[in-house]
């Protein structure tokens, strides 16, 4: 298995048409820390990238004829990334340590993420980094209401970047943020041009840094799950995701009533049975993966002294991360779901029932053995 620290991070910049993806990319590429970054744009870009790498990819997509949705691979994207890597290894282009993919404004981010995650060649050289979504402060609210793809882009994002805030009223920006928080309650959010560009915050502290036992990344992740943003001036407070607790997995709902995409959290007091959780989540994603835009959480797994972080986008789930330690005194498991058209109550009831049924089964088994 390739050491994940040796893999090249791939960041996806997504966002609706005209929302400022290319402008953000231009600003990022001026940062010295990103001087060794390759860029793929799937519309022929106009960015002046003299010392950077620019490749064009088309919109073709290959869905392998299997029904295995985790293997949805965009053939052109896969070929373009492989070609870049090959040129890098041959010394035909400057050595790059990061790849940024800018998608078209209408693209569903999932197939792009799935390509990097599941392509049998790419996954040994590249890894997924943060997904950054740009939202236009002037037109964002209308686009989110009318364009489902735009709402999905925001929902799956790890980082949110509101653009053009100087072109509209503060009250309108606040209203837009409130709308965005219904779709994605916890991702760190920046406003531009009012706030300085935080390239490290946008690109770092991702799920692979969690696995690398980066305490900073683990603090960011824990704060994201809890929905409290106190780590940086630029990070706006998200709605508090603290649930009511209890064995029944009670949590909070952040329903978006103008659309079907909404977020909620489940909270479990008792340690979770990892095997049952794996069976339940796999079954859920098999049937409803396309509608589960994000699932992420910190779990108190039975027999594990340290918490386990899980992180998934639709059918794609990252390897579970064994965190170094609990971020605070709270030992409850917390799972945040961002779903499209699924009911909070039925998901909570289903997971609770699976867990209770197995707990009862183990108890009966141990009683029979006289343990």
């Amino acid at each position, binding site marked *: *298995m390739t*050491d*994940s620290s040796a893999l090249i991070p791939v960041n996806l910049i997504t966002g609706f048409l005209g929302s400022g993806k290319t402008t953000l990319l231009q600003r990022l590429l001026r940062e010295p820390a990103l001087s060794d970054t390759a860029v793929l744009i799937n519309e022929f870009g106009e960015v002046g990238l003299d010392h950077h790498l620019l490749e064009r990819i088309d919109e073709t997509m290959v869905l*392998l004829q*299997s*029904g*295995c949705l*985790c*293997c949805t691979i965009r053939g052109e994207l896969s070929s373009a990334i492989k070609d870049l890597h090959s040129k890098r290894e041959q010394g035909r282009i400057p050595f790059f340590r990061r790849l940024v993919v800018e998608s078209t404004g209408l693209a569903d981010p999932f197939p792009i993420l799935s390509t990097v995650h*599941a392509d*049998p060649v790419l996954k040994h050289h590249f890894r997924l980094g943060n997904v950054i979504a740009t939202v236009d402060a002037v037109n964002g609210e209308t686009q989110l209401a009318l364009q489902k793809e735009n709402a999905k882009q925001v929902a799956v994002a790890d980082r949110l970047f509101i653009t053009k805030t100087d072109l509209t009223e503060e009250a309108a920006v606040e209203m837009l943020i409130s709308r965005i928080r219904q779709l994605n309650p916890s991702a760190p959010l920046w406003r531009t041009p009012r706030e300085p560009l935080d390239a490290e915050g946008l690109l770092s502290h991702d799920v692979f840094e*969690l*696995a*690398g*036992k980066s305490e900073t990344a683990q603090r960011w992740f824990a704060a994201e799950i809890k929905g409290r943003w106190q780590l940086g001036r630029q990070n706006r407070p998200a709605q508090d995701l603290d649930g009511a607790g209890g064995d029944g997995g009670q949590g909070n709902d952040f329903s978006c009533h103008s659309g079907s995409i909404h977020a909620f959290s489940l909270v479990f007091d008792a340690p979770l*049975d*990892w*095997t*049952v959780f*794996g*069976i*339940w989540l*796999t*079954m*859920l994603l*098999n*049937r*409803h993966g396309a509608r589960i835009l994000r699932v992420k959480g910190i779990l108190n*797994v039975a027999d*594990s002294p340290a918490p*386990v972080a*899980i992180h*998934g986008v639709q059918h794609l*789930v*990252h*390897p*579970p*991360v*064994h965190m170094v330690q609990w971020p605070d005194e709270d030992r409850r498991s917390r799972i945040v779901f961002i779903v499209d058209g*699924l*009911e909070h109550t*039925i*998901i909570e*009831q*289903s997971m609770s*029932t*699976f867990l*209770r*049924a*197995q*707990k*009862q*089964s183990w108890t009966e088994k141990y009683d029979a053995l006289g343990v």
Partner: protein
Amino acid sequence: MCALCGVLGNADHWTDAIARPGVFSRQSDAAERRRERMRRVQCANRVLKFYGLKLSDWQGSAFLLSTATGKTEIVDHLAHLWIKAEKLTGRLCDPLDPALIAQLEAAHD
């Protein structure tokens, strides 16, 4: 190889993550791996009973999923389990199905 796609090297699944620093896994040694497989079979069968299916371990390297009439599929890992179960039964295996939830609740009441 991914049994469904035919893509080489595509068999890893998050529930079978290879043990390495920073990754939570129950694959750290052979005994732990076998124990987890046994637990997985037992847990899955509680659910599969609803669909008239039964899962068993096959040589510690795969699973066998069978109907009551003996029709059998080989399952590599959990991601494929539910796809194969739906193929064998012609039914959707949905954890949000109220009838399934009711049966699981009845079983532990």
